[in-house]
């Protein structure tokens, strides 16, 4: 069964997820992808700014900040891709 897709801004702090795809206008999408948030990337919601916007996610040793409406364009699903890299997410 395919797991329910959500967007990045819906994650709670500390929650882990896997990128499914990135949507949105080309300049934003290109930037997000080039920063390494590509399909299959495992990430963790790191923190949210005092007004819950922007937020940061942690992946590949990078801490990236995005506004909520930018994070909304990053579609994720929960769970583990079964890779060997993480310590059992």
């Amino acid at each position: 069964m395919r797991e329910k897709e959500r967007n990045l801004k819906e994650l709670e702090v500390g929650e882990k997820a896997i990128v499914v795809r990135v949507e949105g206008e080309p300049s934003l999408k290109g930037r997000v992808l080039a920063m390494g948030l590509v399909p299959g990337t495992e990430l963790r919601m790191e923190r949210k700014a005092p007004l819950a916007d922007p937020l940061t996610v942690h992946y590949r040793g990078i801490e990236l900040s995005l506004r909520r409406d930018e994070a909304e364009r990053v579609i994720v699903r929960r769970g583990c891709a079964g890779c060997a890299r993480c310590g059992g997410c």
Partner: protein
Amino acid sequence: MAGKVIALAGNPNTGKTSLFNALTGSRQKVGNWPGVTVERKEGRLTLEGKDVAVVDLPGIYSLGAASADEQIASDYLLAERPDLVLVVVDASNLERSLYLVVQLREIGLPLVVALNMGDVAQARGLQIDQKALEDLLGVTVVPTLAASGKGVMALKGRLASLLDQDLSTEFLEVPYGPQLSPIVDGLADLVGDLARELSLPPRLAAIRLGEEDEAALAALERTQAPWLIRRELDEAAAEVEASLGYDLQTALIERRWAFVSSLAARVVSRDKTVREALTPSDRIDRVVTHRLLGLPLVLLAAWAVFKVTFFLGDPAADGLDGLLSGLGESLAFWLDGVGASPLLSSFLVDGVIGGVGSVVVFFPHIFFLFAFIAVLEDSGYMARGAFVMDRIMRLLGLHGKSFMPLLVGFGCNVPSIMATRILERRRDRMITLLVLPFISCSARLPVFLLFAGTFFGARAGTVIFSLYLLGIAVAVIAAKILGSTLFQGESSQFVMELPPYHLPRPKAVLRSAWERGSLFLRKAGTFIFLAVIVVWVLASLPLGVEYGSAESYIGRLGAMTAGFFAPAGFGFWQAAVALLFGFLAKEVVVGTLGTLLAVDGVNLVQVLPQYFSPLSAYAFMVMALLYVPCAAVVAAFREETKSWRWTAFMVLYTTAVAWGLSVAVYQVGRLLGLS
């Protein structure tokens, strides 16, 4: 080797600037990339007695068109084809850095990799197999510690020997996989024209198209049959979308990252005994981005920067000012003694020395502010401050990073205009630049103190406060309007890395502060100096008139423009002249009114009510607050935008807003029966 060019590339926060400084020392030229406000630095490096140019590219994460910085770097590397590209990578986070390295090798550039920050990597238990990295990517790897200068000698040696060789390297082939490779190959057969246009091999031209690279798409329109290729692209995209669930652009970038990850996995080994539960960065971030503490901490940090900048800058500026006026007085005395004409004396004292004074007094504030900005940026706190402030600043139509320049604007608009360079995107930066002049700087305070004190007595404080609020309100409204009109199509973004914290290095901080200060003196100085001379000429001629009197050119100009101010309630020539002189520096308005109105030993405070009512005094203060900022701000604005058109627009629109609002205040006030 002489005449050869090395381009320096790398991610932000990898020690690129330190390496550039270590390589080129003080032999640097600072300018701008053509047509944009991004700074371009070029240095010279002596290798085995021969001069080599080093071009510092903007710090980028990838080649492409996602930002102005990336566009500049891509264009430069493809069009200019430097002899060698030196790319700085962060050994403590190799995977992140390798994406750019792979892209550079993919377009066939000869690379030297400076493997920087190995000390940090070691502390985290990371080992990098340098030989494997060299073999897998076809590059030369030199370990460096740019911050302390270690490895720089060895790097120079390698650069020298490489530049002596023939460096035609082959293109690195990124494996795009069984799904995408046939699509790329199929497209490659069709894009011969485009490939020539882009000076890339057909396969790479096809990949660029698939990645929706703006430059490639634009070049496609210039070829014979773009529709044919677009149809092919659409078919390919549909095919990919159907099987993978995402588009071709995403698929290509995903494959490249997968390749980068596999490279990193092969060259980086991790010592499992070194375990970091929580890095120091994490611990600091828990506090500075805290839900409750975050905002007060940013405000505290910004307030401290503001306070200390002016605490250190004011006495230094006053000292310089005193020194120059002392010099002016001695010179005037001496000239008087040798019987020089009063006109010459006035030219040298008021014009030349006054002009130099108008420029150098800004140096201390710029120096100290940029020292603090360098500390905040180098340490990594600036990114956190922007992160915490972004939501609030966005309500005001601005960006999280606009906060610092705006706050500094309350002290002086000049360094704050220069501080807007921390904003990366054009839209965010231009809007901040355009609304900054409405922020009431300390030079406007003497004008408020004089008028509010004279006309509003006990309520003077409230009146002055209302003017500060008015300045902020106008700035916010202007930001909103500009954002939805002139900059409507451009997006603001907050996709940025929060780099790990590290201790700023004093040498780098002082260097940055000195660089900004001296650049201001050299670039903006000329304009300010000329403005002072022009005003002096207008005030002193025709021959024989008293300086700034009704008969002088500036007096006549005042008389001509007085009618323009009549609807605001101060349509007399002395007010117009005072505003004209205010272009030199806004506090000069007070001095000029003193000279023109308070004649025969009468106190200015006693004379003012003969000319102004409380209502027209308030309208005058609104005018002084909002109209064209002083010559130094205009000069700094022109320097930062590199555009006379935007500068002219700023001068005209601020003055129009000022006139409109002061007229509105006066007219509405009269309708309400105020006087």
